[in-house]
């Protein structure tokens, strides 16, 4: 029995997934029963009353009230039961408990970006601790997408200009597949993500240290990811053009002049200071508008962005 369930529905990632599967398998067996009944009656009547002689008259059986009531009322009762069962599970699963971790999700052609309560941002990889409810708050930057985690039996459309949420409590550690299930164009079928369900310790460690693959990546590439994903790109250009903040092009080693008249030659420490405490010194000609990124960059990421700026000559 369980192997049939597993073959049909794949792995389960939460207790709720099992609830859905129980109803699903109930419907499978109910359908098997009624389909067998239809096949049996069809084949039996068709064969038993097959034509043996041409031109015979047949009895006039117009209707039979008892029989008709039977096959109206029995299906009605069954489907009403299924309605309450399905709806009850759905409502229970859509209410997030108060202690749920809130993670923001943004869908755009064709990637999933995640933002954690501590400001950590990732793309394509969602990490959550096991056995704790998770509430995803999702929106889209362009067209409709749909965040679908088959092993949690959960999905929701992701709508531009609106926030929707999706709740699940993962119980099975390891990697789970995430798909985009609402057609969104050319790379719709590649718009996938990984859901990693970690032990609480591993989750905390991951929040501090980041993805293991970041640690094997050359610092310049890490820095480029940081530049694109952490929002540097909205104020700092890389082609020398003026924006809200100074361009990163040719920044390293340049002599910067501040509003108070002092100067500095841009080096590693100046960049780190500007990220962690941007209001300390303001470059002449710019407004003091940059928010602090204190604690939002891990050490490899800080090294990465410095290496990246160094590269932009």
């Amino acid at each position: 029995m369980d192997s049939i369930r597993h073959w049909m529905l794949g792995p389960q990632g939460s207790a709720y997934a099992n609830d859905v599967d129980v109803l699903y398998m109930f419907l499978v067996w109910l359908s098997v029963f009624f389909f067998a009944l239809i096949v049996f009656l069809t084949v039996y009547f068709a064969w038993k009353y097959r034509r043996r002689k041409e031109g015979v008259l047949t009895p006039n059986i117009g209707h039979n009230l008892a029989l008709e009531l039977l096959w109206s009322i029995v299906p009605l009762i069954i489907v009403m039961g299924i309605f309450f069962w399905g709806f009850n599970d759905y409502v229970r699963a859509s209410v997030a408990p108060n202690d749920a971790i809130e993670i923001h999700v943004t869908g755009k052609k064709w990637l999933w970006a995640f933002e954690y309560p501590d400001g950590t941002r990732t793309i394509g990889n969602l990490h959550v601790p096991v056995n704790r409810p998770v509430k995803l708050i999702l929106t889209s930057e362009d067209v409709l997408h749909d965040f679908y985690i088959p092993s949690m039996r959960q999905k929701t459309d992701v709508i531009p200009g609106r926030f929707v949420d999706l709740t699940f409590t993962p119980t099975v550690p390891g990697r789970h597949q995430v798909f985009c299930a609402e057609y969104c164009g050319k790379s719709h079928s590649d718009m996938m993500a990984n859901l990693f369900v970690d032990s609480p310790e591993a989750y905390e460690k991951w929040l501090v240290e980041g993805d293991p693959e970041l640690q094997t990546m050359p610092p310049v590439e890490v820095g480029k990811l940081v530049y694109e994903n952490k929002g540097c790109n909205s104020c700092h250009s890389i082609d020398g053009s003026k924006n809200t903040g100074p361009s990163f092009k040719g920044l390293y080693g340049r002599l910067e002049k501040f509003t108070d008249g002092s100067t500095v030659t841009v080096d590693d420490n100046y960049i780190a200071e500007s990220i962690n405490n941007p209001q300390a010194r303001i470059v002449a000609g710019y407004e003091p508008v940059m928010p602090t990124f204190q604690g939002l960059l891990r050490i490899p990421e800080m090294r990465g962005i410095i290496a990246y700026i160094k590269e932009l000559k």
Partner: protein
Amino acid sequence: MADIITTPHISGHADHHDVDYLHDGKGLKSWLTTVDHKRIGIMYLWSILFMFFLGGVFAMMIRLELLTPKQTIMSAETYNKVFTLHGAIMVFLFIIPSVPAALANFVLPLMLGAKDVAFPKLNLFSWYIYMAGALIAVAAMVTGGVDTGWTFYTPYSTTTDGSVALMTFAAFVLGFSSILTGVNFVATIHKLRAPGMGWFDMPLFCWGIYATALIQVLATPVLAITLLLLIMERTFGIGIFDPKLGGDPVLFQHFFWFYSHPAVYIMILPGMAIISEIIPTFSQKTIFGYRAIAFSSVAIALVSFIVWGHHMFTSGQSQLASAIFSFITFFVAVPSAIKTFNWIVTMYKGSVAFNAPMLYALSFLLLFGIGGLTGIFLGAVSVDIHLHDTYFVVAHFHYVMMGSTVIAFLGGLHYWWPKMFGRMYNESAAKVACALVFIGFNATFLPQFVLGSRGMPRRYYNYLPEFQFLHQVSTVGSWILGLGFLIMAGYLFASLRKKMDAPANPWHSRTLEWQTASPPITHNFHEVPSVGGGPYDYYRPVGQGRNA
């Protein structure tokens, strides 16, 4: 209904109208200017069969592409256009007009004992509108194509490249053809029944077409409005649906499904209507539960207007809305169950013959059984959340649209083919083709239920390796299905090259269309038929009606 009470033949009436309709007038012009419902039905038939072929070619391309993950025969952009065209052609240009505009156009007036439909010129006009819509659709295909899916969801459809506005306009135009056909049939059924034919003396086919026509008339205008808004959004940026312009993309889904869910019943009710004819005829048996079948058609038509939200359980609509739509949706299960059991029990103590039309009807019972039962999965909200937009949905609606409607259409085509063309087809070849279609169909779509429940989303060009085996089974199934259709095309075309050999009533049916020659004369009947019994009075000898 076999009891035609003859009125005195008006002497001197034996003019060219005694010629069968196929030979009453020669040349293309006589067809393009005809107002004969039978000729218009035949013109529709060839038009929709061509579209079915086109949509079928796209379907085979989809299955071939999915033989392997990543690229097999085409790029992702091409694939997205191909599945869009497959859906749009099959829905708007084939299935919706298939039974009503082609088959019913031909047989409905004959069944009612009428000379023609109520508005013959309007009937011809609606064919021209259909052709105009078809040409616009073809223009959209060759001028950039469309990659939105047949559902045209916003804001993708308002922002993507290609001929979306033109394709949408084609669907808009085709809608008017559908509305006019519906109006025509409603008027015909109300006003042109033969003397003595009460509402409950009509063949059930007419009830099914009546219910369909009501939906066509009432729901299609909503589609027209929706598509017009979409065209204006794309062309002028009026900001109804695009959130960047202050619109609401989910509003489009409400509008779209407000038409397109009833449209599902525009597609299935005529299929059910055909089955209600084939089973009594080939069982030579009174249909069981005439009124239950008639009223359940009308009930399905009415309920179909208030269940559209079950397409949107994951769209972010409120939980209350989902609850109400799920609740009402389950009521569709009851009339469907009633019909199924009525058809099966009709065979009880009958005299069942297994000609090709009956084999299609028996296939229908099994395939509609699967299509209906898997609908229950999708009506249950918690299960639907998992299955929505996966291959489970693809499999489900193919069991209903193809396994039920198209199979019933093929049954009807084989059933009325001798009446339409005056020729019998090769029965053995027809049985082989029916078996191949049945096997091929199940091999194609049964694996897709499992693909979907395991989480494979629909409209995927690329897929994970773990899904490949079931995709390959499905693709091989599509080849068996294609072979069945090739054989069918072969023997049907071959039959047209023969001399006319069909008797007036090869299946010994009691309904009126069989009481005139095959093919019928232009005015259908020599005398106005007068009806003195029910359409399925197989319990008494021919000609001994209640008035006899």
